[in-house]
Structures are given as C-alpha cells and as structure tokens.
C-alpha cells in the first residue's frame, strides 16, 4: 500500500510516493538522498537518526513517513548556512568530538535541539530544582544527551563541544 507525501527537508519541498511501511529515516536516506541521519540500531535505542522534526529533536527510525506528511525536517546537512557551519558543528570539529563520525550527525542535531529545550527552561532528570533556571553543567549535558550513543566513546569531547556552545550562549 502506498501514499503520496510531501516533506520540507532542509528548506526544500519534496514529494514522494512511499510504501506505508517506510520510515522517515528510510524515506530520507533511500528516496531523497539525504544521508546524514544514520541507521544505527533502527529500533529507537541509539539516537544516530536524530533530526529536528518540526523544530524539535526526534529519532526518525520509529516514525512512519506517512504519519509525517507535511513535516519540516532539518538534518545535519541543513544546519550550516552555506559554508558557515552551525556553532555546534564547529565546536565538534574544534574539540575533536568524534572518532569514526557515524553517530555525529545525530549528536549535533540532538545537541541543537537540546540547547533549545534548555533555553526554554525545560528541566531534566538531574536538575536539582524543577522550577528554577537551568545551568547546563556537565551533568546536565550528559543526562540530556544520553539518548545518543557513541561506540567510539568520544563522550568526553562531545560534552566539551556542547559546553563550549552552551557557555557562549549563556555569556552573550
């Protein structure tokens, strides 16, 4: 069974006919040539397929494409403005926050979404106070990024990259 769907991917409108079983991840990778979201576990456990879906970070291996007709998606490719990398991408480069790089597009999209959540004041499991403001210390960063696994174990520098951007934002 197939359906026609439209997606806005990294600012570009795309329409495709998909089998109802197609996940958003497979639609992007196999049908639209957008390959930065990675297929890691394909069961919602590793975070490698994290993108910004309608403005919020989300995994897309457990999302049927037909259920997201009309969605706006930003992947790691879409974070940069021309040749200027997104600050999170730049920080990942500068702090050496990757080894093989497979989880990296998911990590950067997750970090961008996570910073916006913290900016809105959303607490986390490790927040001392549910009501007070959020200070993105290393414990907060680790907890909020726990849905993105890195089998190379680049976590120390991933935290450093995000801390650098979070610090710059709170200082400005």
């Amino acid at each position, binding site marked *: *069974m197939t*359906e026609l769907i439209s997606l806005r991917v990294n600012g570009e409108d795309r329409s495709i006919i998909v*089998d*109802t*079983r197609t*996940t958003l991840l497979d639609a992007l990778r196999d049908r639209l040539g957008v390959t930065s979201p990675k297929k890691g576990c*394909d*069961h*919602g456990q590793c*975070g490698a397929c*994290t993108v910004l*879906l309608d403005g*919020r*970070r*989300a*995994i897309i291996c*457990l*999302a*049927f494409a*037909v*259920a997201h*007709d009309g969605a706006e998606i930003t992947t790691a490719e879409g974070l940069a403005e021309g040749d200027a990398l997104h600050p999170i991408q730049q920080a990942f480069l500068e702090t050496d926050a990757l080894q093989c790089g497979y989880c990296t597009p998911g990590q950067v999209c*997750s970090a961008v*979404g*996570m910073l916006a*959540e913290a900016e*809105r*004041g*959303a*607490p*986390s*499991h490790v*927040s001392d106070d*549910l*009501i007070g403001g959020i200070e993105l210390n290393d414990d907060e960063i*680790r*907890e*909020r*990024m*726990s*849905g*993105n696994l890195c089998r190379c174990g680049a976590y120390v520098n991933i935290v450093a990259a995000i801390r650098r951007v979070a610090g710059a934002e709170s200082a400005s």
Partner: protein
Amino acid sequence: MMPFEFLRAEDAVGAVAAVTRHPDAAYLAGGTNLVDRMKLGVATPSLVVDISHLPLDQIVELPDGTVRIGAMVRNSDLAAHFLIRQRYPVLSQALLAGASGQLRNLATTAGNLLQRTRCVYFQDVSMPCNKRDPGSGCSAREGYTRYHAILGASAGCVAVHPSDMAVAMAVLDASVMVTGRTGERSIRLTDLHRLPGDAPHRDTVLTHGELITAVDLPPLSFSQHSAYRKVRDRASYAFALISVAAALELGDRRDAAGIPTIRDVRIAFGGVAHKPWRATAAENLLRGAAASVENFREAADVELAKAETLHDNAFKVTMVRNTVASLLADLTRRQVGDVGGDLAGQEHKP
C-alpha cells in the same frame, strides 16, 4: 513488516469507528513503541489509524481543580509544563527519568500508558510467550529475569509494565478518560492495567477500539510534596529495575521523641509488577504513624510480604524497601526543614 493500510483520523469518533470495525487495527500516536513492535513482528496490524494529529494535546485546569492532560500531549511537554512541575513534581520527575529527550518529544501520554512490556522473550518472536502468543508458554520464568515481576505475577507471565509515568499517575489517583463505540467512561488509572492471571495477552481492561482521550489528575492537597525515585542499571536512558513514587503529608503533631506524624501518604512501585503497583498496605500502616525510617521500612516490608522472587531478581525486594525508606525520609526532611524541625538520627543507612 506486514503490509498495512494507513488512515489519518479526522476526529476521535472516526478513529474509534475505524478501529472498532477492524479486528486487527491499531492506533498510532508517537509510534515509539508500536513501530518498534511492528519491526520486530510482535505487532502485525493490517490497519494503522493515526491519531497523533487529533486535538487532544492540551493541558487544562478544570473548575474543580482537576488537571486534564490530553492523550496526545507529548511526554516532554507534560514534564516541562509549569503546572505539573509546580503541583505534581512526582509526575515531571517520572517522565524525565524515562527514555531520552528525542523519544520524549515523540511519545504521548496515552501511548506511554499503553506501551507494552520490554520482556526480552515477548519481543523475540522465535521464543514462546503467553503474552504474545497465548498458550505457547513463558520463556522468562526459567530464563533471564533480572527485569521481571516480584508482585502479582502468574504461572503464565512474569512481565512488568515498563512505564515510569504511570507509576506517578497511580500515586496521584489519576483517572483515564476513554471513549468507545458505546460511549465514554472513566477508569481509575490503577484499574486500567491488569494483573496477568491466565490472560497475560491482555495488558489493560480496554476493549478493542476504545480510545484514551485524556488523563485527569484530581486535586490533592499535598501533591507538591511528592517525588519519584528510579533505580536502574545505568545512570540514564534505561528501564527501571524498580522505582518508587510517593506523596507525603505530615501532621502538626509530634510523638514523644519529637518525630512528626504522617497525616496522609501515597506510595506506588514500578518495575515490580504487570501494572503500576499502588502500595495500599504500606499506606495504611503509615497513616497516623511517626515519620521514621523504621516505620518506612516496616511499611515497605508489609507491602512486600507477598513478593515472589525469581532466580535473577531477589535483589528487588531489598531495593524497593531501601528506596521507599530513602524517598520518604527525603520527603519528610524537606517538609520539616521548611519549619525548622530536626530529623537528626533519622538518616537513611543503606
């Protein structure tokens, strides 16, 4: 994956009608559990009815003080909602202890309640499982049981309900609003999920086609004095080994030793049973008693008296007992601290 027909519901009535007349139709909300089960071959609906766009995504306060949570409110939005953070911290904490940020952005309130067990044998279609394939047997009983039930299990099933959110809702006396072909009904959250008995394939009392539209949290005068504590195999992003949700109200009276008395208390356990386990025996023992660590432990023991452990999970009994004591001690300390009291000598010794 089995092929399926996809229908985007226009409204709740249409969704209920479509699923009711189709014996193997399934509702799709956030998809974080259903789609996984479909990939595993555990769920094989031939019709998927998408309800994620229905206008059930609001959190509103009713005139009587009840907080009504729409079925499609995302877990992240519920956890971050100011009313919930302020009035029902146990619920925010439980939600934030579950899954990951990018999953909570998708997962919904009703979907969280209706997620199915993560028992590894239920999820492996090559293994016998009475919940997935009634009458085929239980692989867990003689298998890996670290994550399995210690309360209310049956010969046929030792699976646990995996939700954190539902444990907090059990403590808050929540009700679930349901609409079906024959009309609407309200079900106490603690009555929504079943014990496995001889029909472990039935997780809940819902009939095919019934749709959860909202969860109501009634006003509870001491709900701001509530908390959730989850114990798991890693610090984040893991299902509970056990968890405890509690709300505690202290009275003005103190006993001879200067310890405040408990006016009212609500306790529920997660990770121990086929449903969120409301610890009513423990509550009854504590109401009117002194808020002492000894009493907290004794109350936990009373609730756990009927625990039946399996070869890998005997630790859960001690773990629940210790967690009950430490959580209630923290809730006591926080309140008595507010009025300058002293709980010296009552530190929890694990």
